[in-house]
């Protein structure tokens, strides 16, 4: 192995470099293939699909299929489901960020009775995903009359403390001098919160928003239980409802157009805010 002063000696050059690229390209193709196929299926007619093999290149029915999905869909127009998903995802991410910022501020900057107890109570919520307590949580939502409502889609999923922990950790790193100065200036706590703490937390809030938006958008089991009315379905859970029961043939072009539409918002968020996304991912696993 020749040593080149411009590159390290363990990186690949020549044939090895091409093999490395080849291996990565195969990986990328494996990742892309299911989505490519879904896209192709969303641009052809049902007749092209039911006589396998289906074409591997897009057809000319893009507008027709997407138009049909968005305006009429199968049980409910996909445009309605997209709107429901957006409300749910934004409600969960913004709601969680707001209540977590407030409680983290209280835990870090105040000494109040029950503070330790409160801290441990929310710590416990880290341990129990909604999937585990679905039956009783469903009963609570039903008793509150939250079935088929946005509040039913949003509130039960806000009840977890990941964000509180993140903000707590971040607030601990904020220099004490800032709070000291604010206190000397006679600034009230909420003034300090809004004028100093909140602007400093901008990046953390944005990173967390990316992760929570994807989490909210991709929820499946909870909307499946809580929305029986098709006009309240979210898009991710609504796709499964588009399959006919029994032996009837599914309307694949419309279903695949819906699948593509369901992917676009979260994928756009990940690609558009890649740096924040990676930061949020690493932060939320600490």
């Amino acid at each position: 192995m020749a040593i080149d002063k411009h590159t390290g000696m363990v990186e690949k050059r020549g044939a090895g470099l091409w093999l490395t690229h080849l291996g990565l390209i195969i990986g990328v193709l494996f990742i892309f293939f299911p989505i490519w196929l879904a896209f192709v299926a969303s641009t052809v007619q049902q007749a092209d699909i039911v006589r396998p093999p289906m074409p591997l290149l897009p057809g000319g029915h893009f507008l027709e299929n997407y138009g049909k999905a968005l305006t009429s869909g199968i049980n409910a127009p996909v445009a309605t489901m997209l709107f429901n998903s957006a409300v749910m995802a934004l409600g969960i991410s913004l709601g969680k960020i707001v209540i977590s910022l407030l409680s983290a501020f209280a835990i870090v900057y105040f000494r109040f009775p029950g503070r330790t107890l409160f801290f441990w109570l929310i710590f416990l919520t880290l341990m129990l995903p909604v999937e585990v307590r679905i039956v009783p949580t469903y009963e609570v939502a039903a008793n509150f009359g939250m079935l088929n409502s946005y509040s039913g889609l949003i509130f039960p999923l806000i009840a977890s403390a990941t964000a509180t922990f993140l903000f707590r950790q971040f607030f601990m790193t904020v220099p004490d001098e800032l709070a000291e100065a604010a206190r000397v200036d006679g600034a009230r706590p909420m003034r300090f919160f809004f004028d100093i703490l909140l602007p400093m937390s901008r990046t953390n809030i944005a990173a967390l928003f990316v992760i929570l938006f994807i989490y909210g958008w991709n929820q499946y089991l909870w909307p499946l239980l809580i929305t029986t009315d098709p006009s309240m379905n979210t898009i991710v859970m609504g796709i499964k409802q588009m399959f006919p029961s029994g032996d009837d043939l599914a309307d694949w072009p419309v279903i695949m157009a819906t699948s593509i539409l369901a992917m676009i918002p979260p994928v756009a968020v990940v690609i558009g805010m890649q740096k924040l996304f990676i930061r949020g991912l690493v932060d939320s696993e600490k």
Partner: protein
Amino acid sequence: MEKRVTFKGLWLPLLLVAPQLAITAVFFFYPAGQAIWQSLFIPDPFGLSMQWVGLGNFEYLLSDKYYRASFVTTAVFSILVTVVSMGVALYLAVLADRLIKGSGTYRTLLIWPYAVAPAVAGVLWLFMFNTRVGVVTWYLGLLGYDWNHVLNENEAMGLVVIASAWGRISYNFLFFLAGLQAIPKSVIEAAAIDGARFWTRFRTIVFPLLSPTTFFLLVVNIVYAFFETFGVIHTITSGGPQQATTILVYKVYSDGFVSQDLGSSAAQSVILLVIVGALTIFQFKFIERRVHY
């Protein structure tokens, strides 16, 4: 860790924690308490009264062959999902790490399936392997292989494993690549000067140095396979054929909502609760290691 400087006040902090406390109490502690309470009763079919059975629901569950089978299914499923997604991700990360230029491009191309919901991933893979119209099914047929995950239990398991592992590769790739890039190049080059070939270097230096990342991902992926793959299973197999893909979380759902067997479903929730608790404690220990490493 405590702040040196704090503000004075009693009502303000209580007001600040009130929203979170209220939501957690109503949608978390009350339901979790209910799950534990209900697991000790059998409700009558009309839901009018409850009969105390103590640990009867648990005894019944643990002797139920379907429940025990579901444990085995969950174990097989989680191990396969973890091994497949971590294996592919490590392979791709090692390749991307060898590039001087362009690893960022591959990262962009590889991370976005993270954003695809498990349920949508399920529909995509179901479409490819559909018994009537699936492209892959059709090409397998040409090769003389008759794919039918609706009837064949192993094929059903294989399909839900691939569909679950597929979207997870992004996440693992990201962490593996970061782990690999954190290993000082000088260590690896020193070994190369000593004549160690790629595979030897990987086995004796890179992989051991990567072990904190690997342990961390192991736990996170098992938690993912346990709890977040419901969408994949519900869209592709609905737990079938013959419960071959009924993992524990799916069984809580099907016993609780489809069969309305509330006592048993609650007891299953409690058992899952214990499992998550154990995994979380395990995870915190490893994160401790990760920080000190």
